[in-house]
């Protein structure tokens, strides 16, 4: 967004903010250390608006909790836009200087009144009004979001809605403000930055841009394809069709991709699968070759965090047995396949090769990070200090195009057969497919089995009590989970974590993808829940 897919601002700026609008992020559990900065801000007196279908830790200390129905974010955001635009609370100066498309946005939000939004979101119109006014009239106001915004079939629209809010209020290029996606994994940012993408080379240089293509062809000494590749969601759906072989590194796709039953069918239909990982994960069941990899403590390199900070990973111990660093294995595979990867002495040389091909990272080296600590891109030359806050002075893309959005419902909503709306996420104690945390004593004592959080009324209707085992079923699969009756849930909505291989929540989730990014709709699908039939 605004020309860079990353947090516009820095994590340490959060403590000085005056208002936080946290949407689709259970920050205390998914990003505990960022949450500490938020707590610090609240402690200092900053206002907090939380939009989340569940009651979460942050909503308990929030000034406003907008408890919207899952999947109705666009309506909520358009309701807020309506208030800001039509009450004249927008930053006319910033809008005139740095944006285009105000008229169209104005026109598209004429009818999206808070009352209209209340109908769809079930958030009281007055709260929407209040949130909009608070956000628009506070100078240092930052938006923080994560996968609760993006993992929808309308995820791109959600992000546009937030970007519109930021742009019309001029909350960009200002310290402690901005639009801030909090990244889920240690190196999501870095993997994207490095070009692990079907459409981008490193540094977001498009594969169908002839200049970029020429640059990398020269750098790598081979002709390259200008045709965008398949994204992961499509790859999964094409397995056994156009996709016949996979090389999977450090990813348990059977557990972490949605609609796991279909993923398993697809994996079975592949001709050849290489899996490279540190544990024997679920995906290994389909592998022809399994390559043992080193974990983060056993190798050198860099991770890039949510605020674009490139930081070092350092080898502390030797890898067990014959396990080797992923970078070494890839190089060997490449050579065996006939492409002569250089004989890099260490990952610092790999980074240097990437930096030479990518202007945004050109000033970053392992040596500089060692000397100065993390460096935030853009960092374009050896004497560039890095960029904590993007867009200072003016947006880096010039004019921001305001993007009208229209509310569409999620791909699969509850109906008579599947009456409950399932949303998913991560808990504090486990991490994703949990191959690491489920090997930690403490996390397992706290959360040993998969569970389903539900409202007391929904549980009672089904004869379920707290702690009962329940069968959860969607159109795609079924699993068993322990019932957690919780006051934090809205009636009609249930929530499950994604960490448990033996009861994989992704057997239930929908693989329908966002119309632009194809990111799957993990956050909304329809399920039914019933007591486990004793056999």
């Amino acid at each position, binding site marked *: 967004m605004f020309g860079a897919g990353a947090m516009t601002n820095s994590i340490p700026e959060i403590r000085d903010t005056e208002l936080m609008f946290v949407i689709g992020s259970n920050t205390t559990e998914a990003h505990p250390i960022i949450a500490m900065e938020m*707590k610090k801000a*609240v*402690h200092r007196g900053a206002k907090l608006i939380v939009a989340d279908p569940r009651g979460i830790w942050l909503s*308990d*200390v*929030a*000034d406003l909790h907008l408890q919207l129905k899952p999947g109705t974010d666009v309506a909520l955001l358009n309701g807020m836009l309506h208030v800001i635009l039509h009450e004249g609370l927008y930053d006319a100066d910033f809008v005139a200087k740095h944006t285009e498309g105000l008229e169209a946005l104005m026109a598209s939000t004429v009818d999206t009144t808070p009352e209209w939004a209340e109908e769809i979101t079930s958030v009281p119109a007055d709260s929407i009004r209040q949130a909009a006014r608070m956000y628009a009239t506070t100078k240092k106001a930052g938006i923080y979001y994560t996968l609760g915004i993006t993992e929808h079939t309308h995820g791109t629209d959600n992000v546009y809605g937030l970007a519109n809010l930021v742009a019309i209020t001029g909350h960009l290029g200002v310290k402690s403000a901005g639009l801030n996606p909090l990244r889920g994994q240690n190196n999501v940012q870095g993997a994207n930055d490095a070009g692990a993408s079907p459409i981008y080379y490193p540094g977001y240089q498009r594969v169908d841009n002839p200049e970029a293509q020429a640059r990398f062809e020269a750098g790598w000494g081979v002709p390259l394809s200008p045709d965008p590749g398949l994204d992961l969601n499509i790859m999964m759906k094409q397995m056994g069709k156009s996709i016949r072989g996979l090389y999977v590194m450090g990813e348990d796709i059977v557990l972490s991709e949605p609609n796991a039953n279909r993923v398993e069918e697809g994996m079975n239909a592949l001709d050849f699968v290489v899996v490279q990982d540190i544990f024997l994960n679920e995906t290994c069941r389909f592998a022809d070759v399994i390559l043992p990899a080193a974990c983060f403590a056993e190798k050198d390199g860099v991770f890039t965090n949510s605020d674009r900070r490139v930081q070092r990973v350092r080898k502390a111990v030797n890898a067990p047995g014959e396990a080797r660093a992923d970078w070494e294995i890839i190089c060997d595979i490449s050579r065996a396949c006939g492409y002569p990867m250089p004989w890099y002495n260490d990952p610092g040389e790999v980074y240097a090769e990437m930096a030479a091909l990518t202007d945004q990272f050109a000033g970053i080296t392992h040596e500089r990070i060692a000397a100065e600590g993390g460096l935030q891109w853009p960092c374009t030359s050896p004497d560039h200090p890095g960029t904590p806050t993007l867009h200072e002075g003016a947006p880096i893309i010039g004019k921001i195009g305001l993007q009208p959005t229209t509310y569409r419902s999620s791909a699969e909503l509850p109906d008579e057969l599947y009456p409950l709306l399932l949303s998913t996420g991560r808990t504090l104690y486990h991490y994703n497919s949990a191959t690491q945390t489920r090997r930690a004593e403490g996390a397992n004592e706290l959360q040993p089995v998969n569970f389903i959080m539900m409202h007391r009324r929904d549980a009672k209707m089904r004869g379920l009590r707290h702690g009962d085992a329940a069968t959860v079923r969607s159109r795609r699969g079924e699993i068993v989970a322990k019932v957690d009756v919780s006051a934090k849930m809205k009636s009609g909505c249930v929530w499950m974590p994604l960490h448990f291989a033996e009861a994989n929540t992704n057997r239930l989730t929908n693989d329908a993808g966002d119309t632009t990014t194809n990111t799957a709709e993990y956050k909304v699908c329809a399920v039914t829940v019933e007591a486990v039939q004793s056999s």
Partner: protein
Amino acid sequence: MKKKGADRSQILDRLEHHGGLTPGASREIHKETGIPEADIYGVGSFYSLLARPEPKHRVCQGLSCKMAGSDARVAELKAAGTPYEEVSCLGQCDRAPVAIDAQMELVSWGPRGRVSPASADLPINLAGKEDPNWTALAAAKQMGAEAVLHALEASGLQGRGGAGFPAHLKWKSVRSQAETTRYVVVNADEGEPGTFKDREVLLRRPHLMLEGMAIAAWVADAQVAYIYVRGEFSAERRAIEAALAEAAEHVGDLDIRLVNGHGAYICGEETALIEAIEGKRGMPRLKPPYPTVQGLFGMPTLMNNVETLACVPAILHRGGAWFKDCGRNEAGSKLYCISGHVVFPGVYELPLGVSFNELVQAAGGPVGTLKGFSPGGASSGFLPMSLADTPLDFQSLAKVDTMLGSAGVVALNTTVHMAEAAQWQQVFFEDETCGQCAPCRIGCSIQRRAIDSFLKTRDPADLEHVEDVHWEMEAGSICGLGMVASKPLQTAIQHFPEDFGQ
């Protein structure tokens, strides 16, 4: 961190309604209020009436009760199988020995104490007729706030809680703050061992205190007044409630809130008292900032002792000069508590600056041959009879390295061994230190152990570090309690070396 809507100031009340800090109470109150359960537990466990809430006799272990035979009463209760706990001074030294029973009502095994005979020339006049005519408040409004402050200044009134700080300065300071939300707090948490004068004001002349409070609130432009009354005071609380019911029509829109203490001597310290009202552990704050600037809920707060406020109506009626002339070296009359070895223990309103000898005469003379006295509560330590003609006022006592404090005077005769008397007082401080800072927390334990072992061994070597430890407690503690908490032992050794084998 504060959850929105979770109001910590309700913790103590809720714990009281739950019957104290019983297992599970913290979690229940957490569920009701959203306040973190560890905080509730931490607060509840600080206050002895909540931490040990079981119905039982609470037998006073104050100096006067000890001298009057509380040990024998404990032995009787024990023999009878009656549940009991030995507790810090209950402020009933004039009718020692005493206890409070399972219903928190007073049980006295001694005679009723006396007060000065009624006289129109006494500003407070405990034996006088309680006549809540509220004319002082009306007079204050008539003369205006500045004139009230002038009268207060002319009266020379010093705080009667112990520190003796000029009252008009405190009032002026609060009145001059830029912050407009202000509070008045009445410190009715009388707990200094040997002291029971506020008790008599509350029982006999509550409206004087209420009227003084209303005037203070009017001058300070405070909207809310808190009365923090000691948890062990049941009859006193009823007296305040009755007076408050009568006061309603006179105090206009002043919001008056009666807050119960829950068993913590330290809450008599003004910042600890503020913490208690806020629903926290009663641990004194660092000063500065002073409560007049940042007090209750961070706002300017005018806190006065019961007796101080009770002097105000007479000052307004009869003028500051008249009040001032009621005293000798220092201004006004003073409610002196005297107990221990005198014929008629009680509260005597005398010119500020009478000597111990004069006070003993007012109380009907000594019982036996006196060997020493405690001039101003446990915190003042002990003085020998050679100082019995020293004026009992703030400055004169400071000159002999002690203090008037709350004027809780105890007379000790030759039947008392000063090492034992010192031990009783050190036990008190070890029980009542809040535990927040090391000098006081650890120092109290060290001094207690020193006197305990001396009483076992009679070896003066056990006492070799008393002076050093006392020095550090005085130099390093956060609040006034720590500064004086080893005074009894230190002064007993200093003034009665013969009782310490020296």
